[in-house]
């Protein structure tokens, strides 16, 4: 009788204060809106949306749906959607009141981030509702953390003085971000030719790595850990190739990186620091962080303290003993905050430094640099942990190299 035809989460591409943000699937594939379509969207991953917590704040979130009715005698109906997980069909009999109490508790504890669809009356004209805005209630976005979530709705309609009747169930993958993605990601222009709109293929990993984060620092740290932990099974430091850029040469070959993450060849298993800095900053910025890729270097190379390069379990200066190396970096690149100066903070997904009082020798205490001030010589901060005492004068921030490589 009544059927749900479409649901649009991003129904207003001009802002993200009441609805989902602008997205695309990847470099080559557009994400159509409405995100859910009857007969097309079956699984949660067939209907994807992302919300930026800082934009939503305490605002009422809405979706836009279209419905139709096959009975020409019906011109009006009330429509709503319940959380299908915490509001399954109730049992009959005297257990009903207990069921109501339990589901109220469950909703409070684990209810999906989008909550439920508030009931409203729909008018059908020639059997069609046209686009109708529905407010969401019991949403948890204002207090949510970064992560991928699944929303399952149980859609119901009610005719005048009737009871609620189930007529559809839908599933949606909902990514929760701290804020609007920052560069290289864009929100405008919202058109298919813009490949810099945030990719859901990227959010899928960003949200897993940044899971549970409620601050930019925690999200960036999570992404940094996620990237570093790709070694050695997915990527490893490019010792054979002299530490050459495999994914970040002339831009970020994000398509190849995602292929690699999914078990394909991508651009191969080797990465260097520029690649890792690009992975970290681009994937963290997709969550609303604000990182850059920037280099440190000097007039010559700088010697290295023992470290654990990505994919390595041996404490040694990077690529120690390999041809084409000399226990030194000609430059190093990391994800960096603000102006990428000595007083700004770095997130290095490429290596772990020695975190104890003496980073120049054993014993070693592995420390992944996250939210660590770059520092000056003698501070005991990132610079001192990475470079040998003799190398530190050549390990200087180079903020002129600050960039955010476009994705392709």
């Amino acid at each position, binding site marked *: 009788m009544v059927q749900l035809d479409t649901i649009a989460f991003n129904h207003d591409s001009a802002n993200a204060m009441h609805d989902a943000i602008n997205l695309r699937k990847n470099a080559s594939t557009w994400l159509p809106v409405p995100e859910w379509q009857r007969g097309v969207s079956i699984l949660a991953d067939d209907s994807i949306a992302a919300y930026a917590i800082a934009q939503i704040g305490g605002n009422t979130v809405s979706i836009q749906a279209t419905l139709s009715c096959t009975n020409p005698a019906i011109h009006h109906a009330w429509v709503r959607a319940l959380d299908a997980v915490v509001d399954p069909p109730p049992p009959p009999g005297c257990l009903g009141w207990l069921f109501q109490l339990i589901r109220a508790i469950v909703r409070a504890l684990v209810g999906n981030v989008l909550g439920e669809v508030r009931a409203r009356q729909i008018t059908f004209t020639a059997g069609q509702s046209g686009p109708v805005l529905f407010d969401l209630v019991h949403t948890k976005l204002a207090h949510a953390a970064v992560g991928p979530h699944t929303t399952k709705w149980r859609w119901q309609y009610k005719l005048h003085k009737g009871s609620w009747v189930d007529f559809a169930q839908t599933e949606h993958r909902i990514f929760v971000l701290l804020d609007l993605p920052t560069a290289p990601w864009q929100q405008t222009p919202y058109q298919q030719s813009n490949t810099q709109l945030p990719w859901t293929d990227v959010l899928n990993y960003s949200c897993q790595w940044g899971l549970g984060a409620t601050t930019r620092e925690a999200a960036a740290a999570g992404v940094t850990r996620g990237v570093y932990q790709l070694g050695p099974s997915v990527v490893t430091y490019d010792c054979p190739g*002299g*530490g050459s850029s495999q994914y970040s040469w002339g831009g970020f070959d994000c398509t190849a990186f995602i292929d690699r993450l999914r078990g394909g060849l991508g651009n191969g298993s080797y990465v260097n620091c520029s690649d890792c800095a690009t992975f970290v900053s681009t994937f963290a910025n997709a969550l609303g962080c604000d990182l850059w890729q920037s280099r440190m270097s000097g007039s010559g190379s700088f010697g290295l303290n023992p470290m654990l390069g990505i994919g390595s379990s041996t404490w040694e200066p990077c690529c120690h003993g390999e041809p084409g190396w000399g226990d030194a970096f000609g430059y190093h690149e990391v994800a960096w905050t603000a102006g990428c100066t000595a007083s700004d903070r770095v997130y290095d997904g490429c290596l772990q430094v020695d975190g104890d009082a003496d980073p120049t020798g054993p014993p070693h205490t592995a420390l992944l640099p996250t939210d660590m001030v770059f520092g000056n010589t003698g501070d005991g901060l990132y610079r001192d942990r990475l470079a040998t005492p003799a190398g530190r004068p050549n390990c200087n921030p180079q903020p002129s190299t600050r960039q955010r490589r476009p994705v392709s």
Partner: protein
Amino acid sequence: MQAAERDVLKERHRFGEWAGKSSVSGDRIVRDLSLTGVELPGFRLDRVDRRADTQPPRLSSFWRRAGTQAVVRVDLFECASVADAHEYLIDALNEFESAAIVRRTDAAIGDVAFGTDSVVLFARANLVVLVRKATPQTEVVAPIAQALDALILGRLKAG
């Protein structure tokens, strides 16, 4: 890259010794070089990506050693001239984190070449070529670089 950075790299790699020098005359350049899979015997061409929107345009290819999972990556950068190719070599050297990638004169590859047994970066005429391992393997890549160099020379002679 900043001018000062470029100067440091040029000095480190003795740019003045090889810049502008080519075994072929300056007006002979290669355009739209394509790879069909027959160029490297013993390898199967896995994937080719042509990027015309990069500067310089780039042809990246991935070659799988026959009977193994080992993959070698070849990038061909098509510059406008010999001089541009040699300038781009400096940009390319700036993509190596190691400071110990040095010039090679022992392997007779290109007009000028850099690298090790596992990575070769060379320029021939207006092309810059980078051959490197994409996955772990023990074999050296210099023979691949030499085969590609011969291919380029053949194209140059054919006009």
